[in-house]
Every structure is written in structure tokens, then in C-alpha cells.
């Protein structure tokens, strides 16, 4: 185990896989000489050269398409999209091609493509550059969507993504790159998809989250703990495939579920999970499933307004207390 940042964990996973498998290559804007907008690929261009770390024009549709073609022909491209907001110009490639090709070719051709991209907000990047759109992709059969919250999972899941034979959207988060945590030294450490993790045990309610919101949920759990309320925090890690059973198992224990996410709640990850929870453990619920998401507005530029729109700890805590109040518990 060594402590490293989320960014370093990603870099190490890329480095490991580039070294392990000659079919792996990286593509993206400014990922070579400039080392990537968020420095995830720092040092890799020097180490592996411009063929395996390929710089592209600002043409997401073009280079995701190129990645799909390369993947169909047997390579394992890892495409970096600078932020998830820029993937929208390439939606046809992602949804109509990457996600559909295995099906439309009768299973004979797969697309072992990884698209790495950070979502999230909090740096005053305003409406067009602050979105959390992973829920849209997680609703599409044919794609896998993961959003790890810790450096160890970032490392292990990126390796799983690169080794997977189907397209994976690997969602990072802008404010998480500098988060530090222990990462196993084993170069073959991988984390399977479709497996949520209980990252904090508790008895009074379950807070479900993914990506950076998991870290907010943990801080809320600490705050609640001071009042004797023990929240269990479940990190989804993987949105598609979705491990609803681990969530349900937790809710069966706590009888209360709160889903927090940075994206908009309406039709969001929480909407899907609420439906699953009601189906899997209806008879275990003591209160309706509660959701907290980002304010349903385009993200404002103004710092106070941005903070007001984000699902900060204060909002998650208030929702948790409201949920507990529904159960007659006040603290």
C-alpha cells in the first residue's frame, strides 16, 4: 500500500496497462506534451512516445469514432475527454456506435474502448462545464459506466475497464484528482464492475452515493455520528452494471435510504435506485426513499450561487435528518 492521489492512481493504472499490453494506447486533447488538462497522463508521452500517446485535434466525435474503429480492429484505446461536458458532440458515436456494435454485429465484434472523463462542479466553470451527466449514459444498454470515489478504486477499476471487452465510460471528478488515499502495490490489483462497497457501517440510515459525493456522504456521517446517529455509506462505484443488492442489504438493516448525487435528481441515479430499493426491500422501509441532487438549474457562475446549487454536506445532512424525522427520530 502506498498513499497517492486519485490522479496518481489513474496515471499508474495507465502506465501499468500501457506496459503490460502493447494493444493499449491513449488518445485525447493535449494529453501528450502538455500532459493533459488535469495532468493525468503526465510523463506517459515521454515514456511511450507519440504513437501510443496520441494527441488529437479538438474533434471529440472524430477521435471517439477513431477509438471505436481501433477497438473493433483489436486495439484497446483509452480516450480522454477533457470533461464530460464535451462528450455531448460525440453522442452519436457513444450511444449509436460504441454501445450498439456488439449487438448489431451479432456478437462477433466488440468495442474494448475506454472513455475517461471527469464530471462535477465546484470550480466556477459555470453552466456548460460543470455537469454530472453519467446518469444519462448509465441508462444506455451496451455501455458500462463506472465512477470510483477513492484512489484505490480508481486504480483497480481503470485497469478492469481497459481489460474489459466492451465500451466503458470511466467517470472521474474534477475536485477529486487531489484526494489522497492508499492504493495496493500489486500491479494486478483490479476491482470488478457491478460491486458496490459499504465504506462506512451504520445502523440508522443508508446514504448511497457515487464519485465525489461519497466523500461528502462520509463527512455527513461523521457529523451525524456526533448526535448518536450512525449512517451507513454505500459507494456504488459502478452505475452500470448496478449493484442494487448491496444497497438493498444495507437498507434492510437500516430501514432508511437517502441517495445523494451531484447530478440532477430528476431521472437521475437516485431515481433508478429509489425504484430498485422499493422493489427489493419495500417491507423493510420505515420512510420513503429520499434523494438529494444538484439544484435543477444550469450551474451558476457566481460562487455563492454555485455553492447553493451543489449538494453540499449541509443539504445531505438536512435530508438525512428529515428522513430520520419521518421515522420519528430527532437528534
Amino acid at each position, binding site marked *: 500500500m502506498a498513499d497517492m492521489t486519485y490522479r496518481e492512481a489513474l496515471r499508474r493504472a495507465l502506465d501499468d496497462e500501457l506496459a503490460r499490453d502493447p494493444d493499449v494506447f491513449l488518445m485525447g486533447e493535449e494529453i501528450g506534451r502538455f500532459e493533459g488538462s488535469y495532468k493525468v497522463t503526465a510523463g506517459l508521452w515521454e515514456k511511450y512516445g507519440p504513437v501510443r500517446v496520441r494527441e488529437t485535434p479538438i474533434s471529440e466525435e472524430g477521435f471517439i469514432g477513431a477509438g471505436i474503429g481501433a477497438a473493433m480492429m483489436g486495439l484497446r484505446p483509452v480516450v480522454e475527454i477533457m470533461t464530460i461536458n464535451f462528450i455531448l458532440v460525440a453522442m452519436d458515436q457513444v450511444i449509436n456506435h460504441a454501445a450498439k456494435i456488439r449487438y448489431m454485429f451479432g456478437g462477433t465484434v466488440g468495442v474494448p474502448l475506454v472513455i475517461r472523463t471527469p464530471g462535477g462542479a465546484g470550480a466556477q466553470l459555470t453552466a456548460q462545464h460543470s455537469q454530472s451527466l453519467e446518469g444519462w449514459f448509465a441508462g444506455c444498454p451496451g455501455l458500462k459506466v463506472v465512477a470510483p470515489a477513492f484512489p484505490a478504486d480508481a486504480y483497480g477499476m481503470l485497469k478492469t475497464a481497459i481489460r474489459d471487452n466492451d465500451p466503458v465510460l470511466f467517470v472521474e471528478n474534477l475536485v477529486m484528482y487531489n484526494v489522497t488515499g492508499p492504493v495496493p502495490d500489486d500491479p494486478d490489483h483490479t476491482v470488478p464492475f457491478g460491486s458496490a462497497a459499504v465504506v462506512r457501517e451504520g445502523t440508522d440510515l443508508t446514504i448511497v452515493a457515487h464519485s465525489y459525493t461519497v466523500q461528502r456522504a462520509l463527512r455527513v456521517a461523521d457529523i451525524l455520528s456526533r448526535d448518536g446517529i450512525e449512517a451507513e455509506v454505500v459507494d456504488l462505484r459502478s452505475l452500470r452494471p448496478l449493484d442494487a443488492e448491496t444497497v438493498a442489504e444495507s437498507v434492510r438493516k437500516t430501514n432508511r435510504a437517502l441517495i445523494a448525487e451531484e447530478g440532477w435528481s430528476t431521472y437521475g441515479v437516485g431515481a433508478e435506485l429509489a425504484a430498485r430499493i422499493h422493489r427489493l426491500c419495500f417491507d*423493510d422501509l*420505515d420512510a420513503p426513499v429520499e434523494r438529494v441532487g444538484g439544484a435543477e438549474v444550469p450551474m451558476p457562475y457566481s460562487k*455563492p450561487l454555485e*455553492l447553493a446549487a451543489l449538494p453540499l454536506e*449541509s443539504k445531505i*445532512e438536512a435530508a438525512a435528518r428529515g428522513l430520520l424525522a*419521518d421515522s*420519528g427520530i430527532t437528534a
Partner: protein
Amino acid sequence: MPRLSDTMEEGTIGRWLVKEGDSFSEGDVLAEIETDKATMEFQAYDAGTVLRILVGDGESAALGAPIAIVGEQGEQVDGAAPAAEPAAGEPADSEEAPARAQDASVREAAPPPPRPGSNGRATGAALRVSPIARRMADDAGIDLSGMAGRGSGPEGRIVKADVERLIAGGGAPAAGPDAPVRAQTAPQADEVRELTPMLKAVAARMAQSKATVPHFYVESEIDMTRALQLRAELNDGLAASGEKISVNDLIVRACAQALLEHPQAHRSYVDGRHVYHAHANVGIAVALDDGLIVPVVVAADTKTVREISAETRDLAARARDGKLKQREIEGGTFTVSNMGMFDVANFEAIINPPESAILAVGATAPRPVVSDGEIVVRHIMRVTLSCDHRACSGADGAKLLQTVKRLLQSPSLLLV
């Protein structure tokens, strides 16, 4: 402390349903208050905000004593919680608040957001139960219907914590008229147990009555042979309907009629004055597994035997299930206490103030009596009338009892 029963002198806050800083609308239930008779919902007379709670859960206060301070949202009371202020206690400043929240370590515990429907009135009409609470109650064999609208969740939804309390035997959140009383069991060693609010009320009322009401007693033997014949005829005739008239129904009817004939035996002594009653509201003492309760047949003088019978059966059943409403146990002007079913020959009852008399009824049994110089077997019932000597004289009581006797011995008079 509001007057929620006509005899309460103090009340105990069973449970607050609002907390400091909460706003409420007119009609919202603010608290459950245990009176000497029952647990009552205390509804808001007006909209407002709870600024400070003065009498906490489980604490008592005299009638009229302040139990909470209410006012406008944000209004300051000495020592009161500033309403709608984040619990962090920092000065409200809408411009600064989001900036503070930037630091995740700053706790900005806003009060829980209003829950949809959480301000609705807990009318008790609908039985709302959370799924887990329902499952736990089913598993434990607990019937939650008596707790409808009284749970700790929104709109009185019964939640897990409520069922846990029930299972733990701590009693329902409001162990009032809704909670059937269980018979006590003998402990292994001597043990001190708290009285239920109802037993406390009985103890206080009876001690007060026996100590301050000058009782006198009038006894009589009533030949119930014809009344039993009438009852048998009535029940034959009513067999198809499933109704069944009891001897007690005839006694209640006889008392109601007699009371109207004897206003001097049907008046209450209250604060040096006599209160005369226009109608005979006859209370019927119902023994519970532990304690008793006296539901009232209102204006029994205006009701037929059949009506009295149906009403009494309903009241007694609900009394045993703990489902009487407060208004059904108040306003009595006279009580009938019948222990005939326990085969007692005779007993003397304590008056239930402010009523001025109570009729204690023993068992009806065949006995040899002298009739026209012959010894014959008749069905004799012994009764004792206890009277408040401040309300009536011995003669008034005797006349009342004489009329009751005449009516029951000529029972067709009860039907006209």
C-alpha cells in the same frame, strides 16, 4: 395546560409532536396530553411558531399553566430557540451562508426541510404504517389499528420506533384510551409499579370523593321476576336481529326514568350550588383487566331500552378495547355499577363526582319470599344507592330508589 377533560386539574405532556422552531397551522396537533382520564390530542387554536417548550415530555403542569411559548417565526423570547435559525447558531445571513458552506467542516445543519404533508393534521382517521413497522407488528402479533394517526412519523404514520416501543412494553407513545389495559401479573418478589394515568385518575377521584362527599346509603331488594320474564320475551322477539337486552339495560332505563321524576335526587352539589340536570346521562361502570372506566349513555331518558342496549354494548366493547373517545366518558349525571356477574349479594359504591348518586347492583337470585301470606320463590336483586348528602336528603334517595323498584317490578312501564 388546556382543559381537555372536565375533571382534570393537571395534565401530563405525553409527547410533543412539534419542537422549538417548528411552525404550525390552526388545527395541527401540537402535543399529546394525558389527562386524568385519557390521552388527548392538543390542537393549535391558531397558526404560529413554537418559540420555547416549557413543559417537556412526561412532565406535568397545572391547568392553565403555560406549557410552551408560541409566536411569530424569528421572534425572540428570553432563552427561546431562535425559530428557523440553522442549528449551528450562527447569525442568519443569506449572503454569507453559502460561502461558509464552502468549508465542508462547517456544520450547516438547517432544520429538516418541510416534508410533503408533514403539516397535515393527525386526525387519527387513517391508519398509516411504514412497511417495516407493519411487518414488525405483524410478526409480533400487535394490532396497530388503535394507534391510527398516533405514530411518530408524518401525519401520524406509525414507524419502526413506535412498534419497537410497543414490543418493548414501554407502552404506546400515548398509552391513553387507545391502549387496551393488560391484567397485571404477580411478580417473583415485591415490586413497585407505576400507575397508568387511568389508575391514577381513579385513585385520586375516589379518594377525593370518599374524603369530601358525605355518602349515605339506601338499600333495597327488588323482585326481578317480571323483569326477567319481560327480558326473555323481548329477546325472543329480537332473536332474529341478533340483539339481546340485558338486565342492566332495564336497570339503566329504570334509573333514567326515575331520575327525571326526582329532580332532588338528580342534582349535583358544585361549589355551594345545586346543578339540576335536564337529562339523565347514565354512566355504566365497565371493569377492565386492570382498572375501570365509565362510559356514559347520554340522555338515557330519551332512549328506548333497545337503543340503550345497543349503545351500551358498543360502549362496553370499545371500553375494553381502549377505544373510547373522551366525550364518551364525561358528562355523566348518575352511575350504575353492576357486579351481579361476580355473584356478589350486595355492595356499596363510591360516588363519581360531580354526580350525586350511584346505584350498586348485586346478583339476582331465586329466594323464598312471603307474598300474600305464602312463601314463594321470586328472583330477588339487592341494590344499594349511594347518595351525596349535600345534594339530596335520605328521603330523596329513598324515593328515587322506590321509583326504580316500582318500574323494575312493573317493567312494562319501561317500554312506554
